[in-house]
């Protein structure tokens, strides 16, 4: 077999490994294997590439790889769990930058040799633009997530952004028409870098994961166009795989946040429900999504559901029972903690849960459930407020001081489902909402529970 054949075969193998890797990454059971498959594919690709006859000097190449591997490994191993998303953004930016540089280097070389064709010019221009946008866009995302970057929108941003966009298109055309003047190429890169900043600067931190996903798709496309520059099938295939699947992932993430990609990109502010309500909680509230709750529940072995008046208002009892059966089907232990004054009449919760055919065995009174919270992974408080208010226990001057409450705050994580931060019957703020282990799911009780069940069934 000839060396080019060997390389081509290696590339084919790598492509297959990438395909399998990507597919596996999308499933919990196989995700780790998927990552390994991808890495193996990359290894195969790199090794066969080194056989390439065009490579005559391994010094720079080795130096680059060594530095890159070291930096990459260090960053990856030392990052805190919470810092991972921003690290992904950073890596992604580097990938985009690398594409720009490779395409640029090749472009310069070919221009030097004087045999630029249209294909190459178009591909190089696209790579320059997309890669550059990916690079600076990712850096901005990184900065915003680290909260070290405090830039935000400014008046006229729309205009400047549109201008930069038009300029980039014009420059790209010029590069294709006049490939020989390589200055245009670098000008295009410069505008691309600017555009990357302008496109991301106004986007809020909450939307950043979506932006990173989108930029990830971009870096895939940049790799793919680089493939056209280099006439390299593997770059084309791997790049477009990532580009296309990245787009789908972006879409999935947008759906999960109930937003459209356009909303995110044009930074239409999300309707932040919490802001409008109570200042008593300042910024301390951590809000969550049904998907995240589902994820927590997936790994929980004991779950306590604490219903309150809000469950009744939302008429969520049937949905709650569904949640119970779904969780039990997954082998999770589920009980209900019923506070004596939950609801608005004695036995309010009993009436509703009986209607929903929740067995009496599942209902634990306060005295029986309280000792178990410490062994509970997740407590879901649905529409209860006063009855889980720790100020009754902890603050002697509280209007409800001394009332026994459900000690939900002792459980691993507390998810509170309610529509807003407004108080319950007693009209007092609830310190539970700002506790470290509390997540708030702002939604109508019934819809929220149905969403959680849906996410559980999908997961």
């Amino acid at each position, binding site marked *: 077999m000839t060396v080019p054949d060997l390389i081509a075969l290696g590339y084919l193998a790598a492509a297959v490994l990438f395909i399998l890797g990507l597919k596996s990454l999308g499933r919990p059971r196989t995700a780790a294997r998927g990552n390994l498959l991808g890495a193996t594919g990359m290894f195969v690709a790199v090794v066969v590439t080194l056989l390439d006859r065009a490579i005559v000097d391994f010094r720079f190449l080795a130096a680059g790889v060594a530095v890159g591997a070291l930096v990459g490994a260090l960053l990856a191993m030392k990052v805190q769990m919470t810092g991972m998303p921003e690290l992904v953004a950073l890596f992604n930016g580097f990938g985009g930058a690398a594409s720009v540089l490779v395409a640029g280097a090749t472009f310069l070389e070919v221009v030097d040799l004087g045999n630029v064709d249209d294909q190459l010019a178009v591909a190089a221009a696209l790579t320059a633009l997309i890669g550059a946008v990916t690079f600076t866009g990712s850096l901005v995302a990184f900065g915003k997530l680290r909260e070290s970057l405090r830039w935000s929108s400014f008046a006229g941003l729309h205009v400047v952004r549109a201008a930069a966009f038009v300029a980039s298109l014009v420059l790209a055309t010029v590069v294709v028409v006049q490939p020989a003047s390589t200055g245009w190429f670098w000008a295009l890169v410069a505008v691309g870098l600017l555009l990357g900043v302008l496109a991301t600067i106004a986007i809020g931190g909450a939307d950043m994961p979506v932006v990173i996903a989108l930029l990830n798709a971009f870096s895939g496309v940049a790799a793919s166009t680089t493939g056209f520059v280099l006439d390299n099938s593997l770059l084309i295939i791997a790049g477009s795989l990532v580009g296309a699947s990245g787009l789908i992932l972006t879409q999935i993430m947008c759906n999960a946040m109930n937003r459209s990609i356009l909303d995110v990109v044009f930074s239409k502010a999300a309707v932040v429900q919490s802001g409008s309500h109570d200042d008593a909680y300042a910024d301390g509230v951590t809000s969550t999504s049904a998907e995240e709750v589902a994820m927590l529940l997936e790994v929980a072995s004991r779950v306590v559901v604490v219903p309150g008046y809000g469950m009744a208002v939302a008429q969520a009892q049937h949905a709650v029972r569904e949640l119970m059966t779904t969780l039990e089907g997954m082998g999770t232990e589920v009980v209900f903690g019923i506070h*004596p004054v939950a609801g608005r009449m004695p036995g309010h919760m*009993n009436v509703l849960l009986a209607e929903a*055919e929740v067995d009496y065995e599942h*209902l634990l*009174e306060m005295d029986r459930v309280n000792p178990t919270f410490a062994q509970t992974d997740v407590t879901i408080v649905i529409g209860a407020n006063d009855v889980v208010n720790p100020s009754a226990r902890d603050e002697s001057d509280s209007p409800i001081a001394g009332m026994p409450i459900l000690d939900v705050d002792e459980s691993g994580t507390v998810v509170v489902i309610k529509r807003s931060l407004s108080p319950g019957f007693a009209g007092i703020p609830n310190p539970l909402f700002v506790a470290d282990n509390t997540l708030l799911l702002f939604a109508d009780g019934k819809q929220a529970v149905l969403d959680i069940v849906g996410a559980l069934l999908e997961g």
Partner: protein
Amino acid sequence: MRIAVVRERAAHERRVALSPEATANLVADGHEVVVESGAGDSANMPDTAYADAGATVVADRAAAIGEGGVFACVNGPDTPELLAGLGPGHIVVGVFDPLWRPAPVADLAATGAKVLSLDLVPRSTRAQAVDVLSSMATVVGFQAVLVAGARMPRLMPLLITAAGTVPPARVVVLGAGVAGLQAVATAKRLGAVVEGFDIREEALEQIRSLGANSIDLPEADADDAEDPAARTQRLLTPHLAEADVVITAAQVVGRRSPTLVTDAMVEAMRPGSLLLDLAAERGGNCALSRADEEVLHNGVTILAPTDLASGSPLSASRMFANNVVNLVRMLCTDGDIHLDLEDDIVAAMLVATGGAVVHPGVSEALDAAEGGSDS
């Protein structure tokens, strides 16, 4: 066809055999309906409603009964006065319980009237439209639980409140026929913890199909010498001992109701608990129950009402009336009634015709009764 209905004379009876709605249906079918004035009063169905539905309201019983046609009643006429006026032209439709109380039917047969006893309808799918035992048992089962709920010293549902947790009442239903099942369902609705028992395997499944628990007795050993009835009683006792309310509704067609609850079993029950015997008309399922009386035994209150269907006279009468309309429609061809003895439903319910009892089961019962009175 002329269809007559009168005021029921039995004590405590508040039902009536035809409702204004049923009257309207019969009139629409081309029948003539004659109603004794006041017939529906106790069921909250005034004369005016009948008249509006197209019935002729007449002042007295005799006028209502007339010379012939269908005479619909809830309880069969059982005194000479009530039998007066009936003759060969009449088809008398009602609940006569002739297998258990054959004598009154014999008197009725003697008038020459054709007698159709609604309680002899076969329990088949097709016959259900005319099955008054089913419809009345539905009312009885429901009322039984309401009466039990109102009479027992505890609440039914689990309530976790600031004044402590009220545990759910435990209700045991013995005999899961129509009435028993309805009692199971109603007690479950009210939040009680319900257990049901029956000797029929299917009935146990039916209890579970209402979300209640069935009491499944362990299989008896083949070499077990214990009397099956005694064994059942022994095995049921712990369930009764836990119960707040026991409702018994076990019957056997045409026979004395089986005794399910012995004195000893009542004594095993908790003071303050309640036993409601729905089978009192044919002797009751509890050895201590006295029809329509309240017995207090060892702190256990034992009720044996026979008039629970009259507790919802309006609904009960309407259902009864619909059964009667369905029967008339089943029997009528070309506006006239023909008793097609090929039809298993008709054959099963025809007790007497031409002055004689023709139903084999009833004849047997009559013979047995005479034999009994002879000895």
